[in-house]
């Protein structure tokens, strides 16, 4: 119950007028980026991050995490009203959300989505409250080899469980790691991979990469499809909210199951997108109402929304306790922590308890503020999407490049963002996962330092990675995940080879 006291202290830190105003501003900006195509949670947070360089860390993290919650909610609005997911993680919400809205039940669909999202987020924060200091305590025993093993495990789980082609995931991760090494080497002091260009001495900022890959790249893909917003109208009345709230208890199994899936996938680095798809898939298979799925079944909205937000929230747990983010957005936030001069990881809990518990308390409040704001502003944000794209498109582009420029006041970063934008378009279209690249760029330096320090400790022998039970377990898990696609392929071939033989025996 020590955590409860700390949490109450956290609420004390958060409950100031300035912080609450930042929360409202963050949520509104978040809904805006969530609603607009081409702007999502990861690059929305990246765009705002340079403006927080001079803020105090507690205020800055409240602003940015509130934006994250807002973006998660905003993405669902467009999914339901326009059949256009504002965020990759709300794709699964379109499956039943849009059909339900088309049947004239848009208000119920939206309320149902927001309320189940809030329950998912709440489950995620409760998990963080209960587990984070315990995980951090455990992680205090970690040395460099254990840290490298944890990073390795995070990378391996992308490759093994990410769903994309393992070869493409490796390329994405590897390029991220390599980009992270560009510039001054912190250990030897030498300049690496600059090829004589003075612009590369300062390194490649992950923020510019996120703005290019997620922002410009996403816009290019959207434009190519020939954007057409044909939205349904919805006015949310208090009656619709009460009705939806009355419906929810009936779906308690779906809520709990989706929440559990979300928390698990958020803590492991699969992220909200994978969580929402998996939750929808499982609901579709096991629901007693599976016939209605795809035609406007409420459970088809509840399942992905709960999982999406549970994952989005619980992705903060490994970021805080271990310094390993569970989603692209939390990777950006982790980068922000380092820029503000904080050292993410278990020591943060003892060094800056006000920051950690302030953040956790702000998650409860931020999500509450987000639900209220998103319910009351649906018509406003739906109207924004009716602004013709000839106006809103260039404005999004301008915002992206302003964001890229403010990272380091460098014009070189503008061209870098163009390059990352083209790469993002190509990667997206030929199914290279982008999140691993961002994660690797943020974690690259730390992973490399952990590796080099381990090598120094062991005088160059890699046996240090199975020198004790803890590190050996982590490495074994990572290797198992790495070989997961191979095991899967092998069993499939084996089963296929067996089947004709069985048929003959019969």
């Amino acid at each position: 119950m020590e955590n409860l006291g700390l949490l109450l202290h956290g609420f004390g830190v958060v409950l100031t007028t300035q912080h609450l105003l930042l929360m409202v501003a963050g949520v509104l900006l978040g809904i805006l980026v969530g609603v607009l195509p081409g702007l999502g949670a990861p690059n929305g947070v990246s765009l705002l991050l340079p403006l927080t360089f001079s803020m105090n860390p507690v205020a800055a993290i409240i602003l940015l995490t509130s934006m994250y919650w807002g973006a998660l909610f905003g993405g669902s609005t467009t999914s339901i009203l326009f059949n256009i997911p504002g965020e990759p993680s709300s794709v699964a919400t379109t499956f039943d959300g849009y059909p339900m809205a088309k049947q004239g039940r848009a208000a119920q669909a939206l309320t149902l989505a927001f309320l189940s999202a809030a329950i998912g987020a709440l489950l995620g924060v409760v998990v963080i409250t209960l587990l984070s200091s315990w995980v951090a305590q455990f992680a205090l025993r970690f040395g460099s080899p254990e840290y490298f093993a944890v990073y390795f495990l995070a990378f391996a789980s992308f490759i093994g469980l990410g769903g994309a082609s393992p070869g493409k995931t490796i390329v994405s991760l590897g390029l991220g790691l390599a980009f992270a090494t560009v510039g001054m080497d912190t250990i030897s002091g030498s300049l690496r991979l600059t090829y004589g260009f003075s612009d590369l001495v300062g390194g490649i900022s992950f923020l510019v990469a996120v703005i290019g890959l997620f922002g410009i790249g996403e816009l290019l893909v959207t434009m190519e499809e020939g954007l057409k917003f044909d939205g349904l109208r919805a006015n949310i009345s208090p009656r619709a909210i009460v009705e939806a709230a009355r419906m929810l208890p009936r779906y308690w199994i779906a809520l709990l199951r989706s929440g559990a899936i979300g928390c698990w996938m958020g803590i492991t680095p699969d992220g909200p997108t994978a969580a929402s798809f998996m939750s929808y898939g499982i609901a579709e298979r096991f629901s007693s109402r599976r016939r209605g799925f795809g035609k406007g079944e409420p459970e088809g909205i509840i399942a992905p929304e709960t999982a999406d937000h549970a994952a989005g929230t619980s992705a903060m747990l490994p970021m805080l306790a271990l310094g390993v983010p569970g989603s692209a957005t939390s990777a950006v936030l982790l980068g922000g922590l380092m820029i503000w001069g904080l050292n993410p990881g278990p020591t943060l809990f003892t060094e800056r308890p006000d920051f950690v518990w302030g953040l956790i308390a702000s998650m409860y409040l931020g999500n509450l503020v987000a639900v209220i704001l998103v319910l009351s502003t649906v018509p406003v944000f739906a109207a924004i999407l009716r602004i013709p794209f000839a106006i809103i498109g260039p404005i999004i582009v301008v915002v992206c490049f302003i964001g890229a420029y403010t990272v380091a006041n460098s014009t070189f970063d503008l061209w870098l963002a163009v390059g990352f934008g083209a790469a993002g378009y190509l990667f997206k279209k030929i199914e290279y996962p982008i999140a691993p690249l961002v994660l690797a760029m943020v974690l690259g330096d730390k992973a490399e330092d952990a590796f080099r320090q381990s090598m120094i400790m062991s005088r160059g022998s890699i046996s240090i990675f199975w020198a004790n039970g803890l590190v050996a377990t982590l490495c074994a898990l990572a290797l198992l995940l790495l070989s997961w696609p191979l095991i899967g392929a092998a069993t499939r071939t084996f089963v296929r080879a067996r089947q004709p033989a069985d048929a003959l025996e019969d």
Partner: protein
Amino acid sequence: MAAADPPHVTRLAAEVFGALVTLSLAVAIALGARVDGIGWTSGGPEAGAFPFYVGVIVAAASLGNLVAAFRRRDRAAVFLDAVKTRRIAAFGIPLLLFVGASVLLGFYVATILYLGGVMRVQGRYRWITSIAVAVGTAAFFYVVLEVWFKVPLLKGPLESLLHLH
């Protein structure tokens, strides 16, 4: 049948292009890292060791992706056709001009030209509407960034003429 198809880029071509780009990046990374030494010194691994081996792994994975590209079932699928290329160009070319103009003329002037130009030419708005929205947007960014957040943006010759620094 293939002869009757309108010109297009296939999925295979896109996959091969992607794999070759990542392969050449990987080779550049590995070669660049070798300059810093990839061996072992008394102070641990040399600076280039980590990026070098990352480069080698990415190169190997790129080769794997290259081979896999030829074994895709959808390798003949259309990746890009004339319509899509035109849409990409209609969005991408003004974007590139905007970045170029930003570097030369500063952000505010470039924003006005870009937004006003796209609205007028592609959105077919009247001149007056286009200019009003473009100038209004630039003024909004100026107030938010320079005045509220005190974040200076790139400025050009016009701003120095008006002493807006």
